[in-house]
């Protein structure tokens, strides 16, 4: 059965629904699709990234990415609190700066 026909496959802007499926579809570049099993995600250490992205999408923090991922068990995804605001793209990218790791390694080497 094509993954798109599985009952829980997310459509655009749909919220993640409870329950794992066996495969996660990663479509980073348009026209390029990588289908990885859950086990492969674990082995390639991409599981945290995928969960993070789906959590963010499910919480409404990032729109437009839900179609790129499958769905996860949402039981442990916290609902946004009133004081939490969706991060801007700049804030998100700043969170993913590798500079502090590099600096810490250089400091250790000094």
């Amino acid at each position, binding site marked *: 059965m094509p993954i798109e026909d599985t009952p829980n496959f997310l459509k655009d802007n749909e919220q993640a629904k409870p329950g794992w499926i066996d495969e996660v579809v990663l479509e*980073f*570049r*348009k026209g*390029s699709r990588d289908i990885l099993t859950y086990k492969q995600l674990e082995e390639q*250490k*991409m599981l*945290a*990234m995928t969960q*993070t*992205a789906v959590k963010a999408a499910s919480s409404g923090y*990032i729109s*437009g*990415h839900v179609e*790129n991922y499958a769905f996860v068990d949402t039981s442990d995804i916290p609902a946004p609190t009133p004081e939490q605001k969706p991060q*801007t*793209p*700049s804030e*998100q*990218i*700043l*969170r*993913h*700066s*590798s*500079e*502090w*790791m*590099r600096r810490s*390694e*250089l400091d*250790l*080497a000094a």
Partner: protein
Amino acid sequence: MSDIFKKALSLLTGSPTAPKPLKMPKNRPFKKLTERELLNLESQIGASLFGLIPKGHRREFFCLDERTWIWHEEWKDEKGAPKATTTRYEVHDNGILKVQEGAKYKYIEGEELQNMLVATRMYYEQVARNIYNRDPATGKKLS
């Protein structure tokens, strides 16, 4: 040429010949690696995030500092003349500014912005784990 471009290019090219790709040391003797070498390692990961690199092209993509990301690509045109382009993505509070020499500066939006968001997230995850042996979620060293 602006100072930031000079710094980025000097870190990239340093010597007249392009450095050979670094192999990851098994025991990661970071005490022997310079900032440039660490950036080269990060860039090897960054370059792989955007799919296949066209034949004959050399690509770099890395986080230069907290507010600057660099995309650099080199190739040869049909006459064999070397070509290169360096794009700087500046992280401002009000958006991500795309800076290219000879082109109008603009804030990226739409699909380009979404791709940048995903790329930086993937970059951070893979660089944290594979180069700095850190858990990207907590920032702590992995056992």
